[in-house]
């Protein structure tokens, strides 16, 4: 035990007395985590997401398209510029705008008819130019466009301005001998009812003038009278640990950067073993009456301890200065830290077992680490990956480490949710360790 503890103590002393090692393994992850955490902050936490810069090009110049433009410009999620189509496209290509909406000529007249055209019917086509490097923006812009266009087109169609369209549609239905007579009668009755509503709306603006005026003042682009709108409203709540505690982006960023830099520290420790071979230190240790289990075991133990200490220090800063909290299970949090520390230690040992020269091994090991970290969601959240990559990342141990830490911190999940990440990481640790022991070359 004396020898085992002496070896562990020596490794701890050498690591923490090395200024460069401390800087790289503790200070660097804190600084980078702080940076990334500030970038991806929560809306309700006080930092607001910037509006998406887009352009709109109105080639129709109709009252309807003017209202659509105005509604989009008033949307707080968007920062809209009115440009001609060519200028808008140029801006998107240059990366200055995320998307450009082109409302084609004839849109105002065709949109109302298209409401009743059916799935095979003709409808005007809105061109959406988007920056392919920001493809995530496209669904959002499309959704907002659909919302505003639906509201305004339906309002327009069913108000007095839409009377000619309704009249045309009624005439088409009445002349459509392919429709059964009963159905034709019911549809024409529907259009007649709509026409009466439209006439009433056009005749009686004064009756609801004050409320309508104030309503339209509050919602620019909206016309008075009957309007269709989405049959629901939304209340947005962060699915974070507790309703009154907003999402803290630092929790994820500290998890990711902690995982990355601790794994890199594991690489350093593995390479250090190769350096010990070269310097004759390994020979001296092997000449002592120590079993292989003790020699390697002390290495695993010291690396695990160093990893744990570093992680604790990183999270201490995260909690003290950045408000990170263990909203879930403390036991689960500790278990995830310990499992990842063991994983790091066995990874370091594997590097030492497979490596030849320290220089060549360091380069390859850092590449492997960066790949693991990247695919594990430490830099970019894994949900932005394509689906096949999200599935593939489940085979990467760092994914489980980051997910496990997220689960125990900002997601506030119970201990049971830590079991899978801990189990997977321990499995990887065992596999790495077994391979390391099998491949470890004891004789020079």
């Amino acid at each position, binding site marked *: 035990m004396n*020898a085992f503890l*002496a070896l562990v103590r020596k490794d701890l002393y050498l690591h923490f007395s090395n200024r460069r090692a401390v800087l790289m393994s503790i200070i660097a992850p804190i600084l980078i985590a702080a940076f990334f955490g500030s970038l991806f902050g929560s809306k309700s936490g006080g930092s607001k997401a910037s509006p998406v810069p887009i352009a709109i090009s109105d080639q129709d110049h109709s009252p309807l398209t003017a209202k659509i433009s105005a509604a989009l410009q008033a949307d707080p999620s968007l920062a809209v510029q009115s440009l001609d189509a060519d200028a808008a496209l140029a801006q998107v290509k240059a990366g200055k705008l995320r998307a450009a909406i082109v409302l084609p000529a004839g849109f105002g007249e065709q949109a109302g008819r298209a409401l009743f055209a059916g799935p095979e019917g003709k409808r005007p086509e809105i061109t959406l130019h988007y920056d392919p490097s920001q493809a995530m923006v496209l669904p959002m812009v499309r959704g907002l466009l659909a919302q505003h266009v639906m509201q305004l087109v339906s309002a327009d169609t069913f108000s007095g301005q839409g009377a000619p369209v309704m009249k045309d549609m009624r005439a088409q239905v009445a002349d459509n001998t392919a429709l059964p007579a009963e159905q034709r009668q019911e549809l024409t009755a529907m259009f007649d009812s709509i026409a009466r509503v439209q006439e009433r709306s056009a005749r009686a603006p004064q009756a609801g003038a004050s409320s309508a005026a104030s309503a339209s003042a509050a919602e620019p682009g909206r016309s008075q009278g009957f309007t269709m709108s989405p049959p629901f409203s939304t209340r947005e709540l962060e699915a974070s640990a507790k309703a009154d505690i907003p999402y803290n982006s630092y929790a994820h960023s500290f998890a990711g950067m902690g995982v990355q830099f601790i794994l890199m520290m594991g690489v350093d420790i593995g390479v250090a073993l190769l350096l010990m071979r070269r310097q004759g230190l390994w*020979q001296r*240790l092997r*000449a002592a009456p120590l079993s292989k289990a003790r020699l390697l075991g002390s290495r695993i133990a010291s690396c695990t301890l160093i990893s744990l200490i570093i992680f604790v220090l990183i999270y201490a800063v995260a909690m003290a200065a950045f408000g990170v909290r263990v909203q879930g299970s403390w036991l689960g949090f500790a278990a995830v830290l310990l499992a990842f520390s063991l994983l790091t230690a066995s990874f370091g040992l594997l590097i030492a077992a497979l490596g030849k020269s320290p220089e060549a091994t360091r380069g390859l090991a850092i590449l492997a680490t960066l790949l693991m970290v990247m695919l594990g969601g430490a830099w970019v959240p894994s949900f932005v990956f394509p689906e096949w990559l999200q599935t593939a990342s489940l085979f990467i141990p760092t994914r489980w480490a980051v997910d496990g830490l997220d689960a125990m911190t900002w997601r506030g999940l119970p201990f049971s949710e830590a079991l899978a990440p801990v189990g997977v990481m321990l499995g990887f640790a065992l596999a790495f360790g077994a391979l390391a022991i099998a491949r470890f070359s004891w004789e020079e």
Partner: protein
Amino acid sequence: MKQELLQAQALHKRYGTREAVRGLSLTVGAGEVLGLLGPNGAGKSSTIAMLAGLSRPDGGSVTVGGAALSQDEFAYKRRIGLVPQELALFEDLPALANIELFGALYELPAAQLKARALAVLAQVGLAERAQDKPSSFSGGMKRRLNIACALVHEPDVLLLDEPTAGVDPQSRNAIFEQLEALKRAGKALIYTTHYMEEVERLADRVIIMDHGQQVAHGSLAELYRLLPAAETLKLELDREMDGALEATLRALPGVQQLQARGSQLQVGLSELGAGSAAVLGALAAAGFKLRHISSGRANLEDVFLALTGRQLRD
């Protein structure tokens, strides 16, 4: 007869298809220095690795004080101290901490460890540098600390693999004095080197190795007796010698060996005084002038050359 502490029988070691050590046997007793001399690649370090338990022999056995390496590895290793060829020191750990660490590996009780470490540091003349890191030491000091780390657990046998490599002459002398002191204290030392001067100074017995095998073994006097001549006269003449004069010189009393290469002449003599006078007289009578003359006692380089036909140093 000295008590034999370490006995190695018929050691074999193969790396792939290359036989690094072939059937080497050796013994070393208390208070004795056994030199392993040979050129690079002779098998010296491979032998040390087997004796230290770092590599498993492919054949043969080795015991220390009755403890066989193959059967009681830990008991064997407790009686061995290894001074590796490299400076096996933790450069960022203070000198005393280095020694304490290695002492702890031999399960020295914590209460005695520090005192023992300080004593060993004093023994190698580094007591004042106990709290300094080896990174601030000179090469000679590092070599001394390297030895100290191998002494902390008081081994019976010390294995030293080229312990003065890269060291200045003054530091080398200091190291030799320490090793001589260890010898006087009853330690058994096995010392490998390819510098014959070191072996000639320290060793009681020498094994000369080449291509993994023992080519000669014995005390220095016994090895010198393997040579045809105990003394050597080296001459550079003003011109090349002819065959007749060469025959004349060979026939002179005391001349045991003669090598002529161009105007260079090397004469092996049984005794320097009379022999050199006869040679110089014969050359003068033949009208030869001397450009350069030197003499020397036979050395292990000569022994190695005589036995293998090759130089000891590359």
